[in-house]
Structure formats: structure tokens, C-alpha cells
């Protein structure tokens, strides 16, 4: 698996490189010292795995993830950041504490190999987004997009309706829409995009509108303009 090391400290990168020599299945394809470099390398090298430091000059590892169009597998590395570590523990994200223990690294990599490999499709620029990294206050998640039922615009941000969670994403609805799978997601009105697979029932509304009942109990209005398209899409 191709891996990228992101850390602002040259010595820390050197140490991780050395530790990874014990794991020939991991092929280090590059390094980055800040998040701009990292973003560029992730796009050009499309690694399947990124070792990501949190505290870096110019922006944190979390900020990098929030900017990425698609997110490879992530193993966080940090020396001491009790807030981040708490977030990792709460959300079962993989992390290594520096100095990294070889056993912990082996365990993290074993866990990685046990997971299904990231699909090839994911690594292509123009393919639709499959998962999103979202950080809202002290909490953070990798959210599989097919589990999100509604995206609602809130100013320049987007509120996700994901199970019982309502995290806020730092992008605009329009920017997100271009990245979503058009087969699965549908623009219901000016404010909202819905997941077609989350719809349980459709009711007729006034003036040609539709009301979509979702599995999670919420009801979304499909505007008159979009309702026509919706009928074309769904009545095959």
C-alpha cells in the first residue's frame, strides 16, 4: 500500500520511515511538512494511507482533512494533544502517540490490512465522494456519505443529518453538490439535498410540490421545479 508521511519535523518523519522498514507492505511514496504540501502530494500521488500529524505550522491535520476532496485511510500521529486524543478515543479513529511504539504501529497496520481495501474508484479525481471527514467542535468523524440522509445549507456551511448526529461541515452546499454521487443524491429544494435511498414515502403537496418522508422520520419538501425532475428520475 502506498503511504504518505505528513509531519512538520524532519526527525519525526525520519523516525517513522525507519519504523516502517519493518513493514514491507507499506511503500512510502512521499513526505510533506505542512498541509498545503500534503494536499498537493495526496492529489498527485494518491496514497492509500496517510500518517498525519495534528500540530503543524500553517494549519492542523484536521484542517487538511476538511479540505480534501477525497480522504485516504488516515493514521493520526501526535506527541501530546489531549483534546485530539480524546476525540480519537471517542470516535475510534486510529492514532499513534510519539515516540511511536513499534508494537502499536504493527497493530494499527494489522487493523488496516483487515479492512476492505479502498476502492480504486475512490482514488480518481472526478469520481464521486464516498466519505467525508467532519470536525465539529471537539468531535470528529469519518462519515460514509451513503449513510447521510439530508444535507441542509446553513449560511455558507452544510448541516449533515447522519443517524442521530447533526455535524456541521465547513463547505457550501453548492461546492458539496458537485462532489456527490448524482445517482444517490437529489437536490430537493434550494436549501437541501436528500439521499434517495433514505426516502420511505412520497406524499403529494400543494401546487405540484412533493413531500418526502425519510427513514429517520424527517420530512423534506421537494420544490415544484425539482418535483418534475424527481418524477422523471424515479418513475422508470
Amino acid at each position, binding site marked *: 500500500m502506498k503511504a504518505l508521511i505528513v509531519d512538520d*519535523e*524532519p*526527525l*519525526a518523519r*525520519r*523516525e517513522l520511515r*525507519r519504523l516502517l522498514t519493518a513493514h514491507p507492505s507499506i511503500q512510502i511514496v512521499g513526505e510533506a*511538512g*505542512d498541509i498545503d504540501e500534503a494536499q498537493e502530494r495526496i492529489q498527485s500521488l494518491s496514497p492509500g494511507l496517510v500518517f498525519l500529524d495534528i*500540530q503543524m*505550522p*500553517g494549519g492542523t491535520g484536521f484542517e487538511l482533512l476538511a479540505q480534501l476532496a477525497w480522504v485516504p485511510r488516515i493514521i493520526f500521529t501526535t*506527541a*501530546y*494533544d489531549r483534546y485530539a486524543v480524546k476525540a480519537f478515543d471517542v470516535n475510534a479513529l486510529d492514532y499513534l*502517540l*510519539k*515516540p*511511536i511504539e513499534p508494537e502499536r504501529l504493527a497493530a494499527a497496520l494489522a487493523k488496516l490490512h483487515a479492512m476492505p481495501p479502498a476502492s480504486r474508484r475512490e482514488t480518481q479525481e472526478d469520481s464521486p465522494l464516498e466519505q467525508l471527514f467532519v470536525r465539529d467542535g471537539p468531535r470528529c468523524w469519518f462519515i460514509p456519505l451513503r449513510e447521510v440522509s439530508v444535507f441542509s445549507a446553513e449560511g455558507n456551511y452544510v448541516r449533515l443529518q447522519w443517524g442521530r448526529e447533526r455535524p456541521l461541515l465547513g463547505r457550501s452546499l453548492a461546492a458539496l453538490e458537485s462532489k456527490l454521487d448524482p445517482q444517490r443524491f437529489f437536490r430537493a429544494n434550494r436549501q437541501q439535498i436528500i439521499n434517495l435511498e433514505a426516502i420511505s414515502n412520497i406524499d403529494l403537496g400543494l401546487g405540484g410540490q412533493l413531500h418526502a418522508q425519510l427513514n429517520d422520520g424527517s420530512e423534506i419538501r421537494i420544490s415544484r421545479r425539482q418535483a418534475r425532475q424527481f418524477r422523471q428520475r424515479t418513475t422508470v
Partner: protein
Amino acid sequence: MTHSRPAVATRVAYWTLQLAGWGLYFWAQASGEVIFADVPWSKSAALWGGFCAGGFGLTHLLSRTIKHRRWFSLPPRALIIRMLIAIALLASTLDLITVVLSLVIYQSPVAAIIGAFYRKLPLSGQLINQFVNSFVVTLIWVGLYLGLVAQRHRYEEQLQKAELAQLLHAAELRLLKAQLNPHFLFNALNGVRALIPEEPSRAQDAVTQLSRTLRYTLASSEDELVSLARELEMVNDYLSLEGLRLGNRLTIVRDIASEATQARVPVMLIQTLIENAIKHGIAEIKQGGTLRIEAQVLGAELIVRITNPRPTNAAVADSQGTGLKNSAERLRLLFGNRASLRLDLSREGQATAEVHLPA
């Protein structure tokens, strides 16, 4: 309104004592009067019922007054004077109640039981003893009340002391953690681990520097003064370790006047400012920058100036604010207004911390 457990317990104790005390006193006096003065129950019960009801109400009124007017936060003299006046008023009122009720019930100013007990005394002597009776009852009530309140205060004080000790411990622990600077510590250890296989002698130096830094930090106390030369040794060890981490992103320029090196400075003060300059300045900038440390003696003053670049769009971090505030507070406690600490952020992309100390 919520009450703490001891407050509820004290209230229950108060009402129990109040009811039981006056009830028992009523029983003793009323039955005594029937036996010794040979009067009907109805008369003695009316007299002592009235007395005890009056006593119950008046003493309760006194306890409310003590509480609301906060008598227990008064100085002892003021408390004693108020207490004596209250005792005199209470005893007189109780005596007046006895006289009036006795006049109505027995057509004599003296209660039947007093008359029976002190029948050999003239009426004036009986009246005096009747007053003494009210006075003693009042004194017993005040004594019990003060005892109960004192006990409660002692209990609360102990509780507060325990709480305070706990807070103090927590604060000490926080301070220690901040002094040890765990982020720096673990990053330095990680750097040492990387150096061991390839540059063992640099790794050895780093371990020495790290242990010296730790020892200096752990040995220092708030009010200790050291020579600037000693403090700068620590700063140099620390900067070498940060150099490992930051590589060529960190450049250091020192301009230390020789007469400044023997000046006394609060231990860890300069170190704290240097840490701030790295943590919130150079470490936050991708290409790094130059840390400038200057010290000079001007007249009777030592001036230490630390200049570093800082990210242009960043606000002053909270931790930086509290760190500086703590340092400034420490200087104020040690030197009053003869020392000062100022952080100058007026120039875009640059921070200058300046300390003035009596040389």
C-alpha cells in the same frame, strides 16, 4: 432554594430541640404547679402553656434575627453586646408574660408554683425569683443555640478547608504539567529516538540537555532568583532541543551584554517567554524565522528583550495570554512596580516581549 446536607441536619436538630425543650419545660412547670400549689390542671396549663408558647415564639424570633442580621459575622464584642441585650429583653418579656397571666388566672403577680416554693419569702423576693426563673430559661436557650451553631460552623469550616486543599492540589498539578511542557517533552524524546541509530553522539547530547532542562524545571520554585547567566544556560539547552525538532527553521541571534549576565532574574521567567516565542511564533510559521534574545543593563535596570516572528493572521492564543498574565503577576508579587513585562504585538508579523527588572 437548595440546602446542603449539614444545613438540613442543623435545621432538624433546631426544631427538635425547640419543640422538645419547650414541651418538657411546660410539662415540668404545669405538673409541678398542680402538685405543689394544689391548683386545677386547667389553670396551670393555661399559665405555663402561655409562657412556653411565648418563649417558643420569642426565641424563634431571636434565632431568625441572628441569622438574617448575620450576628455571627460580627466582631466578638458587638456579638456579646447584642446577645446580652437580647437576653435581657427576652427574660423581661417572659417575666412580664408570667406576671400578666398570673394576675388574670390567680389574681396575683406571682405564679402559683413560685408562690408555693418560696412561700417563706415576701412578695418582692418571690417576684425576684420569678424573674430569675425566666432569666435562667433564656440563658439555657441561648447557650444551647450558640453550641449548635458553633458546631455547625466548625463542620463547615472543615469542609471548606478540605475543599480548598483539593483545589490547591489540582492547581499545583496543572502548574507542574504546564512547566513540564508535555508537547515539547514527547517531541524531544521522539527526536532522540530518531537520532540514536544514525547520530548517536547527537542523541547523547540531546539526552543530557533534556535531563538538565527537566532538572532545572523541577528544582525551581516560584520565588527563586537566579543569575541571568544560569537562566540562559537553561534557555540554551531548551533551544538546542527545539533546534532538533525545527531543524533549519530556527535561527537564534543572541546579544547579551556582559554586565547583564550577573543580574538576578526570577527562575524560569525568561524560559517561559522563550517557550512562548517558539510555540506561538516560530513553530507556527512554515519557513521558521529568527529568534532574537537581547539583554542589557541601563542605569539600575536589567532589560531583556525577546523578538520573534509570528503568523500574521493569528490572534493571541489563550494559553499565551494566561502564561504572560501569570508571569506578570509573579513579577508584581516579587518586585511590586519596580519590574514590568510587556508584549508588543503592534508590528504585523512580529512579537516583542520586554522585561524590566531591578538590576
